[in-house]
């Protein structure tokens, strides 16, 4: 008699949990269908809104592109007016902000000059790390020519005194400033390589 | 003769040694010692330093009075400990901080660290050190802005805007402290600092920490009057020297810069020796001071900031109860009881 009771309870447990799990999975699967985020389409739309001067003409194939340590050039687009739109991600733990996922920067370089740039994704704390993505801080990059960055050396944050650009740091957000700088430098490096400069 | 003796017989246990040293007198001595550093700071950085320290003292005193008012307790300001805290915190600030920095710092140091936890003798950490850490985290730009000492060759500093409370910034030249040089030279081992300048105080830094001469004089004064325990600063400085040797390349070059630069001397003499937060036993004080020295050097060498003394003091203060527990003195004649071997078989029977 005791044996039957025990198995009845176990069956009930299994059935209960199984049913809940099944229903949950179905529900999540259905919602997932509706909330799929098409990263590529989102990126194109964001670029279209950000750089309204020209449409995207083509995308550069990055299959053979060698990234420097810690940075990754995710996408490079060429606009109709010849501008290069570069999306770079910086992820090395000791060089980015306090969120391990790192930061992504969208940099637009045209005719060897940085025309526009903005943070694409980051999870920095507002008031602290997020200050590094405000226009007030990013403005210092606009107008810089590609020769202000030492693109042969991937890692350097503190530039040597040979006229290379060193960013003004944001208070209490040194690592985030470094991450932004590294991302911009990697974008410039990608531009230089892809336009045959290196 | 009906001589009713009204003399009461006082029965009490030992000790029967008396002293007429009150809290107020001890604090007076400390204030005198601190004024050596204050005078040096004013001479080096100008009259605005005096205003900063005065504001800090005023807000500490007001903080304590306010708290006692709110809690409907008698005002304890007369024991001058708030004045001491205010002076120490004020001397730990850079000379050009805006007026709100010493005001908020004094209030926080007194109310959060001392009064909220029970008043004199019950603070969980050194109030001035905690106040400084609080200010450092709140207003890091203002707290890390150091200026060069007044160049007397070109005339004394204008006292313009004295009553408005804003320092005439244009008259000062911002400059990095020698510790910045120490940090950047840590990798190479060649540190270029002028030791004589650091000894006399002709360097950028906080108001009280720059003039080593004044601090040493103050230390001699306090030790002569038996106000502070000399073991603490001595162990701290020895520890700094030892750990500089260990953790820096070409360590010998770094011993004196680490000792004379930053707040090591000031902290060792005034902040580590706080009665409430220093350990009770001799062994405890050595552990405490050595630990603070180790943390200071580690933060300076491997941490993000140039100066690590305030954080080191705060951390070690938090560990003092543990240190006291570990170093509990044994009563006279105490012998450890022999360990009783637990025989499992016997217990099972």
């Amino acid at each position, binding site marked *: 008699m005791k044996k039957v009771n025990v198995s009845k309870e176990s069956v009930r447990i299994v059935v*209960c949990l199984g049913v*809940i799990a099944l229903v949950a999975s179905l529900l999540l699967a259905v919602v997932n269908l509706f909330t799929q985020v098409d990263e590529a389409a989102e990126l194109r739309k964001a670029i279209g809104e950000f750089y309204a001067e020209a449409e995207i003409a083509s995308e550069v194939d990055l299959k053979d592109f060698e990234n420097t340590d810690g940075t990754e050039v995710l996408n490079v687009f060429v606009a109709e007016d010849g501008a290069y739109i570069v999306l770079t991600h910086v992820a090395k733990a000791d060089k980015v902000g306090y969120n391990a996922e790192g930061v992504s920067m969208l940099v637009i370089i045209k005719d060897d000059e940085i025309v526009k740039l903005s943070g694409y994704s*980051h999870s920095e704390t*507002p*008031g602290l790390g997020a200050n590094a993505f405000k226009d007030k801080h990013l403005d210092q990059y606009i107008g810089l020519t590609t020769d202000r960055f030492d693109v042969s050396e991937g890692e350097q944050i503190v530039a040597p005194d040979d006229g290379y650009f060193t960013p003004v740091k944001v208070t209490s957000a040194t690592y985030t400033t470094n991450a932004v700088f590294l991302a911009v430098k990697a974008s410039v490096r990608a531009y230089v390589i892809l336009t045959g400069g290196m | 003769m009906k001589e009713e003796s009204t003399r009461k017989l006082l029965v009490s246990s030992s000790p029967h040694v008396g002293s007429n040293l009150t809290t107020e007198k001890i604090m007076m001595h400390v204030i005198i010692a601190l004024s050596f550093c204050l005078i040096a700071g004013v001479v080096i950085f100008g009259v605005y330093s005096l205003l900063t320290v005065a504001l800090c003292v005023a807000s500490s005193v007001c903080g304590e009075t306010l708290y006692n008012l709110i809690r409907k307790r008698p005002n304890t300001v007369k024991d001058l400990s708030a004045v001491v805290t205010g002076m120490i915190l004020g001397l730990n600030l850079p000379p050009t901080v805006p007026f709100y920095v010493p005001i908020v710092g004094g209030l926080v140091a007194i109310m959060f660290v001392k009064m909220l936890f029970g008043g004199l003798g019950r603070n969980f950490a050194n109030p001035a050190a905690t106040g400084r850490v609080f200010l450092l*985290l709140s207003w*890091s730009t*203002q707290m890390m802005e150091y200026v060069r000492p007044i160049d007397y060759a070109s005339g004394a500093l204008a006292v313009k805007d004295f009553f408005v409370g804003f320092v005439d910034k244009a008259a000062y030249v911002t400059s990095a402290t020698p510790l910045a040089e120490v940090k950047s030279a840590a990798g190479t081992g060649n540190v270029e600092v002028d030791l004589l300048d650091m000894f006399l105080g002709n360097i950028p830094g906080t108001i009280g920490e720059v003039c080593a001469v004044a601090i040493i004089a103050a230390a001699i004064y306090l030790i002569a009057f038996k106000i502070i325990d000399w073991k603490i600063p001595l162990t701290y400085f020895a520890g700094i020297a030892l750990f500089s040797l260990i953790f820096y390349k070409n360590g010998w070059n770094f011993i004196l810069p680490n000792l004379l630069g930053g707040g090591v001397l000031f902290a060792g003499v005034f902040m580590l020796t706080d009665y409430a937060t220093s350990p009770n036993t001799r062994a405890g004080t050595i552990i405490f001071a050595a630990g603070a020295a180790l943390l200071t050097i580690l933060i300076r060498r491997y941490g993000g900031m140039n100066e690590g003394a305030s954080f080191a003091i705060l951390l070690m203060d938090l560990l003092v109860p543990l240190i006291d527990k570990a170093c509990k003195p044994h009563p006279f004649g105490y012998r450890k009881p022999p360990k009783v071997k637990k025989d499992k078989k016997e217990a099972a029977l």
Partner: protein
Amino acid sequence: MAKDATRNLRETFEPLTSGVFKNNATFRLVLGTCPTLAVTTSAINGLSMGLATTFVLVCSNAIVSLLRNFIPRKVRIPAYILVIATFSTLVQMIMRKWLPDLYDSLGLFLSLVVVNCILLARAESFASLNPVLPSVLDGIGIGLGFAFSLTLLGMIREFLGAGALFGYEFTALVEAGLPMTIFILPAGGFLVYGFMMVIYNAAVKAVENALKKRAENKNNDNDGVPKNKNGEQIPLILEPETGADAIEALNREGGDA
């Protein structure tokens, strides 16, 4: 009759109001402190986290209450976690699609809604023992209370620490260098949380005392005659006419002489 109806209505909605003030999850129940400290760095983050948690809480309370007779006692915790996790993931998916900026800001903590103590605590202590409507109301109440306290803490920390409110920066303050960064850091978070707890509890106590006094005054009629609980007049002075009457009155009241 009308009085009974209003009393029933008030009793039904009691979990709603108590969840916001008397049983506030942050300041009274002290649940979910980890996300509290993490997301209150800005007011909008606090508000959105609070609302997201409210949604998950209401849904999970409803489901747990519906299934309360179906889930065996032995596996109730895993079952509740399954339910809570499902809704938490749903919220995450929805936010990622339609509110990407907020999703980026909240980051890790949106996926940690599932381990927020509030959800499991309310499922365990309320939803599993009560029918659906009270559970839903409790979920709304506690959730809104949580959202309220998160927003409050977020506003304080954002204003003191960044000189901004809901993203709107008070440039005059920021230019003057007045914001105190410590309030955005964890140390300041603990400080603000602690002080708000004191202030909040003092305020709730004061309000409760005031309400109690008002209720007591209501029991006393306008003519100042004291009444006992049932509304009967309490005689002020017993006036027996003779001593014998008094003794009789005493004997009548019962008990031995």
